[in-house]
């Protein structure tokens, strides 16, 4: 177990280092305008001096090494363009809490709605609940999220009679972003839970339970549900990852002052340091999400043997 954990964590660390290096190298290919707040008005000499001062003329490996050293000191550079000369970490510290709140709320909503939906679909397989649910899942999966989010925003704001943009003090304006973030996960949970439960219900222990006279509901909830839910756990941390990515679009649609909207904003502002820092953060969250998912699986289900499972999902 400990050996497996160490190996898995080590692999995640290597992945992170590779991602950070790749992101850093890609960023060096960016136009240099992104390092100056007022590039257009500067003379060539000023630009050279500015690049020199920021250490951008050094050989790339030296830059990369310095970047890692700074990273360990919690220094991600300063913003240019979004908020001039403010440390990136300071900006992020303002923005992260609201994204976390929204992400957690949406996951709670999607669990509360998705799990019963999947269970009902498996319980009444082939009945109208199942058919309506399948229709919903097909729609959510086939139509790009970017499109139904827009429709949700358009008709939701008209229906609830609230302003288009987010206002943290008004509880009503939380509803739409949280629910649109949850939609994808609801469909995802329902689809997989239904599939696992249908798979499980063909197994021998279910037949035994039926033979000994357990009622349909007991079998469904005490036997099948418990076994079917184990593989679902693996997706839980990853769905935190998915809300982070989904929220790039949603937060900026509703102008939520969180991390997702920030990425879109700094891309439009050509703020290289900020883009780099946010991409790093997302990659880290993603890698940790997958790591936690695998660890939770192995802890929860004693049948899974350690170390033999290669390649994650």
């Amino acid at each position: 177990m400990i050996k497996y954990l160490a190996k898995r964590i080590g692999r995640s660390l290597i992945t992170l280092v590779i991602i950070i290096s790749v992101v850093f190298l890609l960023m060096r290919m960016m136009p240099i305008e992104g390092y100056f707040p007022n590039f257009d008005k500067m003379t060539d000499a000023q630009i050279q001096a500015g690049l020199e001062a920021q250490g951008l003329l050094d050989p790339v490996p030296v830059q990369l090494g310095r970047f890692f050293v700074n990273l360990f000191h919690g220094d991600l550079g300063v913003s240019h363009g979004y908020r001039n000369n403010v440390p990136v970490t300071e900006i992020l510290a303002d923005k992260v809490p609201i994204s976390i709140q929204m992400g957690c709320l949406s996951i709670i909503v999607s669990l509360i709605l998705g799990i019963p939906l999947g269970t009902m679909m498996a319980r009444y397989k082939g009945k109208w609940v199942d058919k309506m649910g399948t229709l919903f899942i097909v729609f959510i999966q086939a139509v790009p999220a970017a499109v139904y989010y827009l429709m949700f925003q358009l008709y939701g704001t008209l229906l609830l009679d609230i302003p288009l943009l987010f206002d943290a003090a008004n509880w009503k304006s939380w509803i739409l972003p949280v629910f649109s973030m949850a939609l994808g996960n609801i469909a995802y949970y329902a689809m997989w839970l239904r599939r696992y439960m249908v798979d499980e219900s063909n197994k021998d222990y279910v037949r035994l339970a039926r033979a000994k006279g357990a009622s349909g509901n007991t079998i469904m909830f005490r036997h099948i549900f418990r076994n079917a839910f184990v593989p679902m756990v693996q997706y839980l941390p990853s769905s935190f990852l998915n809300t982070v990515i989904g929220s790039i679009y949603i937060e900026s649609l509703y102008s939520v002052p969180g991390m997702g909207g920030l990425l879109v904003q700094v891309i439009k502002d050509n703020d290289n340091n900020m883009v780099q820092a946010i991409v790093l953060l997302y990659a880290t969250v993603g890698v940790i999400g997958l790591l936690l998912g695998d660890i939770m699986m192995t802890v929860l289900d004693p049948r899974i043997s350690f170390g033999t499972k290669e390649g994650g999902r």
Partner: protein
Amino acid sequence: MSSLTDRYMRKVEKSAEQKLQEKMDALSQRTGMSESDMFSFADYDEAEAEKTGYSNYSYWRSTLNMFMKNKGAVVMLVVMLAIIVFAVIQPYLPGQMDPNLCNMDPLTYITDRNIPPNEKYWLGTNVIGQDLWARIWAGTRNSLIIGFSVAAVEAVVGIIVGVLWGYVRKLDFLFTEIYNVLDNIPNTIILILVAYIMTPSMGTLILAMSLTRWIGMARFIRNQILIIRDRDYNLASRCLGTPTWRLIVKNLLPYLVSVIMLRMALAIPSAIGSEVFITYIGLGLPLETPGLGQLIDDGRKVMMNAAQRYQLIYPTILLSIVTISFYIVGNAFSDAADPKNHR
């Protein structure tokens, strides 16, 4: 007591006899032989004895039959083909406008902006007076080109890497480690980064989307090939000296048709979705190349004005039809192409 048992037994026997008789009738009807024919000795006939049986099973015919049974999918297939054909021939039809032309009133030289749908502009015009009907079809065309290119790259790269990964044992460790690293990187991040770094164009978008999608395909093909590469018939083939490439193409890949087709069909909705997202971030196609994502983003900007909302609604409707039809057809085809479902 005994009479009760007797009566019961008689009843059971009677119904059993009845059922047997029904079955016999059905059988003689099917084979065209009377009951006595069926239970008489067959004479020895040399011609009959030489007859060899063969199965007229054809993979593609069975796939087609299975697919045709799914009525909803057939309807969606027709819709899908109609949209593709129309998107291709639309610019050559009479009376179509240039999607990039900003229409003006010939007398007053005032741009025809935000004109609601009428006889001249079938779906109205956008904020700078371009014909929405022409733009929507040009956008569908471009989005489909992006989708098909991404699907093609995914299939080619995914199949080659997957086959190498699964078939060549020495490469397995190396590829698995590479996969573990690549799979951990969020796709959206790569998409954003590549689009951010390169100049916006169709090539950039195709590259950005293709960069990550092949990984999943390669992984799946590798797993399937690991399962079937050492089955007896492949072992026999190898012993008989079949070249490796022929083994792969003839024995292994046909097993994977359903998966490959499914992933290719799903690549199109997902490529269109990515385009919408990338356009929203401001890294999408250049203005003179309309895409469905671009049109939706243009519509989004005016959506709170009820009179201009049609500029969002029409592209959205077309995009939803395209993506849903590809999704359903892809799923139905992959079910039909799976030999396990052939009867």
